[in-house]
């Protein structure tokens, strides 16, 4: 139900995030590009269902140019939907359902004898703190890398043909957003500072992931099962209904069934200092520098998520001393406010503001905040703002 501008913002955010983490996925140790595509599909699907994105997502593909033909080489399918045969294909092949990713090729592995930078002998656009793939450094169409320099250390000839020339983004790669290349100094700690204001993108880039929803924007759950239907269950390992599909899959997709799509992939954010540490590189409004000796008596890593949800084992009052007086905090001690707030999320209309803060002050029970670049969810509507002032009573 958001405005189209809001919807576009979300689409752009999704695309940007996906493109930024693509590098980690296509790494040799990463889950693979197929997983990433699924992640994106799932994400967009959920956003649509939440009403944040207005579907269908209109993506004018700009990467068709590499000889895609009537069928775009990288069709993204909603795996929740029974496969619908297109003009040329009756049954889906693994290639269609799980788009081939040339980046799985050994070219991406750290070449022997080379340093971490996979592009020896090239000048990259300096991106400090950014571990993005070489593709980010390369403007679309530009070729800062000489193919020779790249191919020479690679004896096994692992250069695939599908790459549209070294250094050039492969036809299967979604084109980079133009503003990524315009900002050589990209600080990953500061996300979306440019181009995200006023809820509007200056030049919204159209990534190449295809429209994976049906034309009418709906997803069909109860259609007849086609032979290519593979049930997609969120959060659980995929169960393959059709055994034959397994054989057709590529090697790198076999781990798919075990991957839990419920975003249990451990998220490692590069080097992002905690706000409470004094090594924050980005300029901070509140100067956390010069924190003397912080005595974090417990391990500094935040508690694992499992510990949050579960109520810890109740303290057994074996002593039989004072049950209520000194020890053993019971449910009677629960704060009603906190419990109710937790249940409020089920109502789906819980109001929410997510923003960066400029200033937060308090006088007795009156709080005043100045916020910027935020999203509000009020009355089931998403509203984005550049600046906001708030007064709260607690």
């Amino acid at each position, binding site marked *: 139900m958001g405005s189209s501008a809001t919807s576009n913002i979300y689409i752009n955010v999704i695309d940007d995030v996906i493109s930024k983490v693509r590098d980690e996925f296509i790494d040799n140790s990463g889950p693979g590009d197929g997983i990433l595509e699924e992640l994106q599909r799932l994400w967009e699907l959920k956003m649509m269902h939440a009403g944040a994105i207005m579907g269908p997502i209109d993506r004018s593909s700009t990467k068709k140019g590499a000889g895609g033909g009537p069928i775009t080489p990288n069709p993204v399918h909603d795996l929740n939907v029974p496969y619908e045969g297109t003009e040329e294909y009756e049954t889906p092949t693994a290639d269609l359902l799980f788009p081939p990713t040339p980046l799985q090729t050994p070219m991406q592995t750290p070449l022997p004898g080379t340093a971490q930078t996979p592009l020896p002998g090239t000048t990259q656009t300096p991106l400090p703190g950014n571990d993005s793939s070489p593709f980010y450094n390369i403007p679309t169409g530009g070729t800062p890398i000489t193919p020779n320099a790249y191919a020479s250390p690679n004896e096994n000839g692992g250069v695939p043909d599908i790459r549209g020339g070294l250094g050039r983004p492969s036809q299967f790669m979604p084109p980079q957003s133009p503003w990524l290349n315009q900002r050589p100094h990209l600080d990953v700690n500061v996300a979306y500072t440019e181009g995200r204001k006023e809820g509007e993108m200056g030049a919204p880039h159209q990534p190449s992931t295809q429209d994976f929803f049906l034309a009418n924007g709906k997803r069909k759950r109860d259609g007849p099962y086609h032979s290519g239907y593979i049930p997609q269950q969120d959060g659980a390992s995929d169960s393959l209904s059709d055994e034959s599909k397994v054989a057709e899959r590529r090697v790198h997709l076999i781990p798919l069934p075990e991957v839990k799509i419920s975003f249990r992939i451990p998220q490692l954010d590069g080097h992002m200092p*905690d706000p*409470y540490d004094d090594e924050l590189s980005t300029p901070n409004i*509140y*100067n*956390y*520098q*010069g*924190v003397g000796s*912080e*005595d*974090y*008596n*417990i*391990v*500094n890593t*935040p*508690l694992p998520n499992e*510990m*949050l949800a579960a*109520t*810890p084992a109740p*303290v057994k009052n074996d002593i039989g001393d004072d049950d209520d007086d*000194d*020890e*053993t*905090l019971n449910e009677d*001690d*629960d*704060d*009603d*406010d*906190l419990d109710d*707030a937790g249940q409020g999320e089920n109502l789906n209309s819980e109001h929410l503001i997510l923003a960066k803060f400029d200033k937060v002050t308090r006088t007795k*029970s009156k709080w005043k905040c100045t916020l910027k670049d935020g999203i509000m969810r009020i009355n089931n509507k998403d509203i984005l703002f550049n600046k906001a002032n708030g007064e709260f009573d*607690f």
Partner: protein
Amino acid sequence: MEDPQGLEGSQPVGLSKHPSGIVPTLQNIVSTVNLDCKLDLKAIALQARNAEYNPNRFAAVIMRIREPKTTALMFASGKMVCTGAKSEEQSRLAARKYARIIQKLGFPAKFKDFKIQNIVGSCDVKFPIRLEELAYAHGAFSLYDPELFPGLIYRMKQPKIVLLIFVSGKIVLTGAKARDETYTAFENIYPVLTEFQKVQQWSPSCSCVVEISSLVMEVSFLWQRVTT
């Protein structure tokens, strides 16, 4: 053990216990409790709902709850201070709520050695007081420097309570660890206050009034002359 009904400062209640007929109203209770486990302040600040944490400013998490309306300071050692409650029972209840919050966040919090550290009460005797004379008469206990602070600071020895006595007749009592200490202290000071009650007599105030009014008339006379 205390009087059960809501205690207003000026309600005559239990004259056997409060011969003055006035019961001080409790305004603030400060208590401490030992949660008996080390706390990861950063984790608490990131996960808890109403938590503030600025380690460069103060080495504790400041958490607030609405009912009872209180504020808690939680330290990494596991000790907690709870302030803002209006009664001892509320302070205890609030402290338990905070401990429960910490428990739900995953720490093995207990509720050890809950203790009321300070009780602040206030009341109004409804008559003005001659502070300077009171300070003179009770020099050993009193500190009165109107340039520094408009109230007289009376440090009672038994019970060990500090009273702030103001010209208006409003009294603040602080330092008690139990409600009875507050009550006793007030009952102790009440006769002293009545002794130094500022009696409104007509003669001194009358002369003031006469002086002022004559000045006004002079000024109006002059003004009339000037403007005509």
